[in-house]
Structures are given as C-alpha cells and as structure tokens.
C-alpha cells in the first residue's frame, strides 16, 4: 500500500526527471547555437574592421607586404594572404577541431574565410576563434541540471511532508473517530468542522450514514426482541396442549412416542427464542449490575443441574480452581456463561471424553476432548452451526461472546492436543 500523497509525488518526480533530461540537449543546442553565431558575427566584424583599417592606411606596397608578413606571424588565429583574382568573393564559415599547443589539448575552432580588398587588390582573410568544446558545454549543463533536480526532489519531499501533516489532520481525526465507533453504543458520531471542503463533505456523508445505520440497527434489534416476544405465547400454548394430549388415556404407544418426539424440537424452539431474547437484552445493556462472584460456587451450582448429563455420557470431569480471586460480573450473566459453555462441551464431547474447567490468575479455561479443530471464524457467530446436531440453538457461543464483551473480557478458541480450549482473559 502506498500513501495517497506518495502517488502524485512519484509521478511528479518522474515527470520532472524526464523534462530535465530533455532540457539538457535543448539547452545544449540553444547555447551552442548562440555561441557559434556570436563567434561568426565576431569573425565577420573583425574581417570588416581589418579590411576598413587596412584600406585606409597610406603605405607603399613593400611596407604593406612587410605589414602583412608581420600580421601573419604575430596575429594569432588570423591570416591575410594574396589571392588570385579569379577566386570567389563569397565569405565562408567553417568549423575545425585541432590541437591547440598553448592549451595543450584538442579544441574546437570556428573560422571565417573571406576576401578583403586592400588598395584594390583581393586578399584572402582567414580568422579562427576558439569555441567551447561541445562535451564541456554538455557536461556543465548536465551538472547544473542534476543539482537542480536534486533540489527539486528534496523540495518535493519536504513540501509533501509538511502539507500532508496539515491537510490530512481532519481526515486523521475522522478516521480515528470511525475506528473507535461502536454501532452498539447507539450514539452517533459528531465530527469537528474543518476547512477543507472535501473532508467536510466526507464527514457529513459519514455522519448521515452512521445515523441511518444506528436507526436500522435499533429497528432490527427491537424487531428481534418483539418477534421472539410474540412467539412466547404460541410456544407456551403448544407446550401446554402437548401436556394435555399426553394425559389422554386412549393413546397408543406410537402416538405416545410421537408426542415425546415433538417435545425435542419444541424444546429447541423454546431455547432459540429464549436465547434471542437474552441476546437482545444483553445488547441493550440490560445487565449492568456487577458483583464479586465466587466462581467455584457458580460452577458447583451449574454442575448440580448438568451433572446428570455428564454422567449419562460417562464423561470425566475435572475442575481446577487455583486462584481464589473473585470474578466480577453480573451474576446472571456469569451463570449463563458457565451453563452455556458447560452444556456445549457436554453435548459435543464424545462419550467417555474429558471436560476440564480451570480458573487461573486472571484466566478462565474450559476445555474438552475432541477430534478436530473447529472453524474459528464461525464459532462465535449467530446460527453458524458447525455440527449437524439439532439441539444446538446456534446462539450459545454468540451469547458467551456477548457476555465477555459486556464484561470487557476476551475469549479465544484453540485446538491443542486433541482438546478444544476456550480461554477467557478476565
């Protein structure tokens, strides 16, 4: 994942690099062109001045010859030589690279050859001027460009950082508020007003969205509670009618067994309904009471009711209460948690298996023997039934999870050594 500002930064940097790279030959061409045409102008000017000066001096032919000889020896880079009359009068410019003995290196020269007239006689005037070597120009421009590019990138990074810090401040605020948002708290989020239009719009939209969600969540919650409440009377009637039917003296064995087998799904219906109501109650913070509970006592009480089922399946039950620390919770919720986990373990442990309940310092562990690990991600979800067994309401562990949440505990599931382990961090 890249950060939002790094994306344009990268693009900008690459774009700047391309432009600067292209600029190097362009600069070079421009500079070289200016350079060359200036020197050509200069050469032409020099030629004209020399012609003008020499044509104005009043000297004899011998003296002229002497002057020209001296010129050709002393004047560096230029020469005046006699010309046959038939040669062209056009000026010509040329470029040459040759070894310069004074600089002790090969150099580039720009030259001009043209005809000048002294005393009516044509002379070939040649002048050469040193031009900067092209690779030297190129190197200089390249160096400058590289330095500028460096400055550009450093500038980009610094600006990017400082702008990011300021600009994204309201966004970070929004994000942290959203992260800590809990739909169950049923309180909306209020964002602080900010100057940036886009963020302000984002905040408004998110606020609206959250309010909508809260209202839908509330509706759904009360729907579940109302629906299960409405189901209570028909369930009670069903149970009642079945009881009366069972008293009928004319029942034969098959009918009697049929009635008995209706009791089982009816029991499950009752449990699902009760659990749905219980979940709704826990979620609406119905059990806010807290007290210090003696875990051993609660476990004993639960075993009083569940002991028969443990014996029936011939399970080996072990309890280990190392810590005498009290568990702080609503009594009802703690009892429900223990009952749900214990009955779950009893149901899912194969006959002859083991069940182990431990209370250590700050940790409550329920474990039972099993063959394979359960799917962690579905375990605590509602109605995500991982077995084909019919008595499960599909809500037992969801309730356990909810109780842990209410009490600020964390529950983890692990499968180790052929044991399912539910551990609760108190």
């Amino acid at each position: 994942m890249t950060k939002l500002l790094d994306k344009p930064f990268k693009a900008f940097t690459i774009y700047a690099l391309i432009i600067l790279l292209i600029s190097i030959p362009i600069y070079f061409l421009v500079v070289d062109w200016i350079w060359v045409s200036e020197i050509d102008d200069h050469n032409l000017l020099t030629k004209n001045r020399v012609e003008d000066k020499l044509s104005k001096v009043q000297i004899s032919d011998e003296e002229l010859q002497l002057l020209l000889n001296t010129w050709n020896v002393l004047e560096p880079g230029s020469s005046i030589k006699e010309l046959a009359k038939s040669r062209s009068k056009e000026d010509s410019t040329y470029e040459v690279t040759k070894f310069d003995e004074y600089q002790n290196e090969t150099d580039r020269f720009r030259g001009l050859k043209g005809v000048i007239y002294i005393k009516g006689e044509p002379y070939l005037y040649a002048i050469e001027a040193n031009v900067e070597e092209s690779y030297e120009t190129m190197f200089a421009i390249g160096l400058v460009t590289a330095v500028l590019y460096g400055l550009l990138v450093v500038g980009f990074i610094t600006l990017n950082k400082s702008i990011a810090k300021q600009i994204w401040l309201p966004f970070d605020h929004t994000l942290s508020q959203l992260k800590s948002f809990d739909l169950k708290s049923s309180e909306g989020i209020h964002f602080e007003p900010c100057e940036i239009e886009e963020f302000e719009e984002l905040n408004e939209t998110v606020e609206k969205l959250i309010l909508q969600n809260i209202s839908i969540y509330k509706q759904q919650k009360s729907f579940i509670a109302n629906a299960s409440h409405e189901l209570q009377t028909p369930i009670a009637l069903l149970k009642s009618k079945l009881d009366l039917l069972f008293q009928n003296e004319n029942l034969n064995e098959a009918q009697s067994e049929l009635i008995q087998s209706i009791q089982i799904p009816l029991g499950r219906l009752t449990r699902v309904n009760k659990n749905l109501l219980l979940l709704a109650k826990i979620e609406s913070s119905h059990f806010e009471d807290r007290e210090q509970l003696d875990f051993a006592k609660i476990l004993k009480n639960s075993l009083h009711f569940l002991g028969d089922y443990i014996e029936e399946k011939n399970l080996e039950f072990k309890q280990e209460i190392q810590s005498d620390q009290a568990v702080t919770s609503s009594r009802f919720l703690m009892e429900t948690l223990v009952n749900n986990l214990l009955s779950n373990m009893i149901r899912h442990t194969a006959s002859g298996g083991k069940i182990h309940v431990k209370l250590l310092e700050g940790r409550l562990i329920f474990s039972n023997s099993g063959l394979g690990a359960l799917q962690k991600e579905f375990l605590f979800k509602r109605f995500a039934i991982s077995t084909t067994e019919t008595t499960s309401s599909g809500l037992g562990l969801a309730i356990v999870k909810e109780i842990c949440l209410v009490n600020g505990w964390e529950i983890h599931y692990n499968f180790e050594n052929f044991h399912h382990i539910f551990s609760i961090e108190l």
Partner: protein
Amino acid sequence: MKILVIEDEKELALDIVSYLGDLNYRCETAHDFATAKEKINLYKYDCILLDLMLPGGDGMSLLEILRAQNKQDGVIIISAKNALEDKIKGLTIGADDYLAKPFHHSELAARIHSVIRRKQFDPSNLLIQKEISIDLLSKVVKVAEHTVTLTKKEYDLLLFFIGNKNRVLSKSALAEHLSGDLADMFDSHDFVYAHVKNLKKKLNEVSYGGYLKTIYGTGYKWEL
C-alpha cells in the same frame, strides 16, 4: 383446594384449569386486572397463579394489594418475561414462587402442591400418602415403618410424582424438573430413566403399593 388462575391468554388458562381440575383442584379464572382484583378481594384461595402482564394493569400491583390486606393466599407468578428483576421483585413483595413460561403443567402442579403444603399449618410437616410418609423438614421418607434412603434427585422426583398423581409425566417434564431450564439444551434425557429406576427399586425393596408405573417407555405415572 381452591386456585385462582389469573392469565390473560384464555386458552392457556383453560389448559391449566383442565390439568389442575384432574388433580382435584377447584379452579377459577380471571383474564384481566379488574376481574382478578375483584376475586382477590371477595374470596380466599389456597393458591393464586399470577400472570404479570394483564390487560388493565400490572400483575405485580395485585400482589401488593394482596399482601397489604395481609392475606395468606399462596402466590405463584407465571410470566413470559422471565426477567430476573421481576422474579426478585415478585419474591420480595411476597410471591411464593416464580415460574417462567413456557412450563410443563406437571411442573406447575408440583409447585402448587409445594406452596399449599407450606401454607398449611401442620407442625409435623408430614406429607402422608397411603403407607408413604415424608418429613418435609428432615427429608426423611418412610414406607410403613421402613426408612428409605433417597438421593436428592430421587427425593425431588418422589415429591414431583406425588404432586402429579394419576397424571402421565413425560420424560422431558421430569428432566426439566431436575435440570431446570437447562434441560432443553439437550435432546437426550436418558438419565431420567436411571433416577426413576433407582427410586422404584428402593421403594420396591420396602414393598410400597407399586404406584409408580411406566407408560410405553415414554412417560411415568404415579397411580393411586
């Protein structure tokens, strides 16, 4: 024995009356707050079954009226709300028991039996049925002159049977009586067989009247 069934769901009230009628209780019904209040003021009942949600008022205030008049009628709250605070409040105000809906009629009958027994001023606290006598305080069961040693669950079952004589009791009703509402977390209640079998065996050893009958392997009956 006179019982007032205060329950707004008429069908359920009728079923209760039907079941209890066969146990020789005389039942009256009230389906709303006003009728219930009137009956409470006019008559005396051995036990009142009180639904909390009534048309015209809260069942809890009926309980308050009753206790304010210092009447000693036994009261069992039967509520669909199954709310802990209702239970605590009801028992504090002076209800004798609390039963959450849905319930088995046999469970209700056993509770009524127990409430009425407690209300009767019998200093010996002896429950006697034919040759069986049960001391409710010391929980000692005797058949003729022989003391029968029962486990807590066998003792509970015996009282449950006596409170539901001549009624067919399903296995799930017995399991619910022994395990409370945790029973519906399981679909096998085979342990009930074992407890009933043991109870039967112990009673047979002291040759009681053989009242405990098995009905088709699906239920039991205490037949007198």
